[in-house]
């Protein structure tokens, strides 16, 4: 019973990677965003670390939307969603499984975004790689907690991408501010305050929305 979320995540990942489109789409969109924003500064001028961090998290936010739409549409065909609901496990395990697979897909996309930030935006100074990676993981946790909850909500809707972006982006603002501030610190600028205080905010966000998701997910996913 304990491994059900992992089994669900493994099933989703196998399907997404077998098809390829589910991961290529967010990676391509993110890379395009990074490239387009690299045009915002005149030739020869450096992009500030804070702007680079903002672009990185913007690309990640769009990836969250695409990733969770893909993950929840996997059960869209042939009423497979009912099968998932009837499976002998708490409904919250579905949220957990989707969040886990979403986290893997998001980290995969970020593997491409990080070098793109270095190449296109000229960010070659990293204060602490372990700190930066830890920050990315923590913020990703909050992103997938909200993404996995609200991804279920736009299921079966024709304009689900745009609907989800309108609802999710404003909710993610505290997390994105923390990501930008901590990102600029690790890229060597550090204008947005102490990373420690932002870390507290990120942990509070993650705890609050993970708890809220566990309570609220059955209400959303049970309706169809």
């Amino acid at each position, binding site marked *: 019973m304990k491994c059900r979320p992992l089994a669900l995540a493994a099933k989703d990942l196998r399907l997404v990677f077998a098809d390829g489109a589910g991961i290529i789409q967010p990676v391509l969109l993110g890379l395009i965003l990074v490239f387009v924003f690299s045009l915002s500064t005149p030739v020869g001028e450096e992009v500030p670390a804070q702007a680079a961090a903002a672009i990185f998290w913007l690309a990640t936010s769009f990836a969250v939307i695409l990733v969770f739409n893909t993950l929840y549409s996997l059960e869209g065909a042939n009423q497979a969603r009912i099968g998932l609901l009837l499976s002998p496990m708490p409904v919250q395990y579905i949220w957990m499984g989707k969040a886990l697979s979403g986290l893997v897909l998001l980290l995969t996309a970020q593997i491409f975004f990080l070098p793109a930030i270095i190449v296109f935006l000229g960010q070659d100074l990293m204060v602490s790689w372990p700190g930066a990676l830890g920050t990315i993981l923590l913020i990703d946790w909050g992103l997938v907690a*909200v993404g996995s*909850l*609200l991804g279920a*909500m736009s299921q079966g*809707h024709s*304009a689900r991408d745009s*609907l989800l972006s*309108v*609802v999710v*982006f*404003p*909710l993610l*603002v*505290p997390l994105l*501010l*923390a990501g930008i*501030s901590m990102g600029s610190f690790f890229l060597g600028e550090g204008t*947005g*305050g102490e990373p420690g*205080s*932002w870390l507290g*905010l990120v942990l*509070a*966000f993650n705890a*609050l*929305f993970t708890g*809220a998701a566990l309570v*609220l997910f059955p*209400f*959303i996913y*049970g*309706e*169809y």
Partner: protein
Amino acid sequence: MKNMQVNANKNSNLSLAGALVLAGGAALALSQYFIWIHAPVEVTMGLVQKIFYLHLPAAWWGMICFFIVFCASIGFLLRRSPAMDQLAASAAEIGLLYSTMALATGSLWARVSWNTWWTWDPRLSTALIMWFIYAGYLVLRQSIDNRRKMRMVAAVLGIMAFLNVPLVFLSARMWRSIHPAVFASEGGGLEPEMLTTVIVCVVSLGLLTAGLLMFRFRQKNIQERVLDLYRH
């Protein structure tokens, strides 16, 4: 007999809503005396500071409406009562209207006081982000055809949106702030006449808000019943 009692209750609710709107309208008219005659002109900002008497009540009542959305959403999830959903929807609409008023008046005021239409400030940013969230909430309600699903999803979003308020405010404050703390200093940062005027304006808008909320709630209730007739 029961139907007659229900109808009598509905009529008395309608009368109460009408009375509240009328009282709110009259109180708002009276508040103009307090704004323009009773309250002194602020020394540094001059006449433009008078916009504060609309800005602050709109911001406060907007936030209270969003709190009603939060409570009604919890009520809906617990009791599955369509009335709770209608109350949440009505409060979200009025809250969004007041937030728009607060943002517009704040922006006009900021242009004169701070020489900028917009600045990154915790209260401004929180108001704008809440505006985006509740605008998204109303768009979402329109976008989902299945009413059962729409109500459930809207209730979940109504709860999540309000849970986010402290975090949004805290993160925006950590980013940077230049907004004046009107009631932060001991005894408030306002002259007694100004404080009286603020209280009158807040109460007036409160009466109007309560009346509008009851009217809108009733409209939504009737709309639902008409739709039910059409669907059956």
